[in-house]
């Protein structure tokens, strides 16, 4: 029976080309926009290489230090965390690993006479918080903290040596020779917290620690990997508690305001103290609802007009014994076929949009855009994530069924004679 309905639907599609085209284009439009948004949010918030632990990571990117002097002078500056603070945070219950790192564009690295290279000073836990895939070699360990070692990305290794087989070779970073101990699969700009071309031990002599010795502020950005069994909010409270305790030992005119946030709160630039993910995403949810409902209303209108034109056909089918369920089933089959075609077209469009605009599309909702950021690497698992594809398809099919069902059910309320008299 389904096969017959599908054949019938296919013929109807060919007969009513304009209607079918509008239906497919409308659905594709909706799918492409919604899917593109889902892909953006998945890449920014979901588990992607090498940030697979985003759901249980808490970041402290900076601490604002406000100083009020007696003569009314006021200053406000942002710093990272000091080594002392990092050591205390590592002892918090539920802290599985604590990555400290710094680098990026504030440091200008020249590697083998190539200027403006991206390097990052990291501790050993960095390799636990971020799940890098080592193509060769291994990360440095606690024992290597003061050694001139370096881990490089695959792309950077190829840029320097035209091969990824570089473990054991030496590179010159700002006039110091460093031995390569590992090569990792290159991360992209969509993971800015850990992105770099090379990583060197945090205790490296090249690190210019201007606040060395301070009990609270220093150079490091901090990422705490929380144990799955611990409440992340408790861990955040403990971090704040430690900073408050240290601040109470500092002069009274100094005020320390840490920026502590879970990954999603940091990415969505949440200003409120304790919002939920749903609160943070609400404005985007409204946009997605509009992207889904407007085309659904569009289809509803077309189907209502079409059903009123097909009243005679419905009357004939009813007079030959077709039940309302049969007719609804037939109409739904027609619509499902068109919805399926629209969905496939929309998904393809979304992939084309995301891939061709990959240099800027991931920053589309950012308040400040880092124009110097490295290019994004969009991989197949980011685009073909089964959860987001299923969610998009489910939403579209659900709305299209509703927009087809309402006018169909309305038109079935007429008796056979009424339906036939419509002609």
């Amino acid at each position, binding site marked *: 029976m389904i096969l017959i309905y599908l054949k019938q639907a296919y013929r109807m599609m060919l007969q009513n080309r*304009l*209607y079918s085209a*509008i*239906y497919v*284009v*409308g659905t594709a*439009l909706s799918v492409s*926009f919604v899917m593109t948004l889902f892909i953006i949010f998945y890449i920014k918030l979901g588990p992607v290489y090498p940030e697979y632990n985003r759901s249980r990571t808490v970041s402290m990117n900076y601490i604002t230090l406000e100083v009020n002097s007696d003569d009314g002078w006021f200053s406000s500056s942002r710093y990272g965390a000091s080594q002392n603070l990092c050591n205390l945070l590592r002892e918090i219950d539920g802290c599985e690993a604590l990555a400290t790192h710094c680098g990026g564009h504030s440091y*200008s690295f*020249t590697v083998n*006479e190539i200027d403006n290279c991206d390097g990052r000073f990291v501790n050993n836990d960095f390799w636990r918080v971020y799940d890098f895939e080592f193509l060769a070699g291994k990360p440095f360990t606690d024992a290597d903290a003061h050694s001139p070692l370096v881990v490089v990305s695959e792309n950077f290794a190829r840029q320097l040596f035209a091969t990824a087989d570089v473990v054991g070779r030496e590179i*010159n970073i*700002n*006039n110091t020779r460093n031995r390569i101990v590992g090569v990792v699969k290159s991360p992209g700009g969509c993971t800015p917290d850990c992105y770099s071309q090379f990583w060197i031990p945090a205790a490296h002599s*090249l690190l*210019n620690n201007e606040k060395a010795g301070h009990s609270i502020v220093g150079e490091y950005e901090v990422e705490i990997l929380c144990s799955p069994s611990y409440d992340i909010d408790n861990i955040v409270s403990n971090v704040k508690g430690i900073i408050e305790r240290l601040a109470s030992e500092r002069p009274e005119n100094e005020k320390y305001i840490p920026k502590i946030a879970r990954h999603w709160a940091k990415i969505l630039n949440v200003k409120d103290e304790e919002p939920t993910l749903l609160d943070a995403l609400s404005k985007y949810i409204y*946009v997605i609802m*509009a*992207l889904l*409902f*407007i*085309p659904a*209303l*569009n289809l*509803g*209108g*077309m189907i*209502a*007009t*079409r059903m*009123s*034109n097909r009243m005679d056909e419905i009357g004939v089918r009813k007079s030959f014994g077709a039940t309302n369920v049969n007719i609804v089933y037939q109409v739904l089959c027609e619509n499902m076929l068109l919805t399926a075609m629209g969905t496939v077209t929309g998904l393809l469009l979304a992939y084309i949009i995301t891939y061709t605009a990959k240099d*800027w599309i991931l*920053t*589309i*909702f*950012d*308040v*400040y*855009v*880092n*124009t110097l950021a490295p290019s994004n690497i969009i991989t197949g698992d980011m685009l073909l994530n089964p959860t987001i594809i299923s969610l998009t398809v489910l939403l579209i099919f659900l709305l299209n069924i509703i927009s087809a069902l309402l*006018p169909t059910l*309305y038109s079935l309320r007429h008796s056979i004679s009424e339906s036939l008299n419509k002609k």
Partner: protein
Amino acid sequence: MIKLILHQMWNERRQNGWLFLEIVAVSIFLWLAIDPLFILESRRSIPAGYVADNLYRIKLKEYKETHIKYNKNCRENSLEVCRNAFNVVKSIPEVEYVCTAIDRSYPNSGSISSSICYIDSTLSADGETKSLGAVFYQITSEEGDNYPATFGLVNALTGETAQIVNNGNVNSVFVSRSFAMEGFGTLNVVGKKIRDSGGKSELMICGVVEDIPFQQYANPTHVVFHTYPSYESRYMGVFDMFIRLKEGVDGKAFMRRFNEEITPQLGGGNIYCGGIKSHIDERDELNEMMGYGNTYRIQTALTLFAVLCTFLGVVGTFWMRANARRRDIGLMRSVGASSGRIVAQFVVEAVLLVTVAFLVAQPLLMHKVYAMGFAEPLVDFITRTDVKGDYIHDIAWVHFVAVSIISYIIILLVALSGVVIPACRIARILPSEALRDE
């Protein structure tokens, strides 16, 4: 005709209901998509107060101690190296004017330095001691260093290019028009004095220039140009320079020649030339960094989405409706109705539908604006430093009406383009053909 159309619309109220709901939803969606674009475009249309064309920045940089090219044996005087570079640049034949570029002291520099100025009660517009927040630009007036001419600042009193005055006084300032008007109530303020934030120094006004927004999307704000007579009178580390090219000089060709021939001549020791860049490119990069490029992209995409949905909805509904009305149209044609009248009937139907749906959306949008305000496409610190003016984005009702009119015109044009095609097609049909089919 209107009665007939209303009757027809009422008969097809169920099908019209869907389209009506869609247009209400699209009206709200489109309005919200256009609002941030309107704000950005309205702000962009404010006169810049300077001439951005033909303006280029030359960067001088210094190697850090950790840099591979750093030479620790060089102990050159950085000010002398920069001064020599300045003289080399000044002597380039294509260069009309040149000035030093101090951080945060020129429009679209990316950040600002602001402070409070005080005006004594004897001088202020309302007879009371007045404090005015202002953006401070620091400029120098050494021989050959001409900031006003390089930037093309306009003298607010004469309308001509402003001229720099080197009176040897470290406390000379230019002020912007809005500063003079709000502080003194007049543009004739040359020779008058203001006090700086600490109240310690008196600054003498030696010129008034037209308002100059500190960023392309900012409203004009109060600006004070603090003029230093020499590089020594204000500590100058390694500084950048701005140049204005003479009219008719090809900028791209000049930049090529500069990079090849001039760059190696600039700098010395650990100081080197970091290249030349057009001010317009730097301004556009700043706008991109502030997220305006993304705002344009996303809002334009949403606007296109709304437009396409409206078009598809109207074309689809009216196409099928036109086919369903073949018999009526055949009858109308057979009793003498012209094809123009039939097209007009469809068009009026669409106009009525769009207008009523759009009007229904307005109270909802008003409520949104009342409860949540207009869109905020600009970063916080820009709107915080705004001096409210008579710009249409600053007057709430004008802003609302302007965005509504733009949205209505777009929806109406799209709906009309969607209805005209099926209407013309059906209006061409011969009466005999239409009636035979039925």
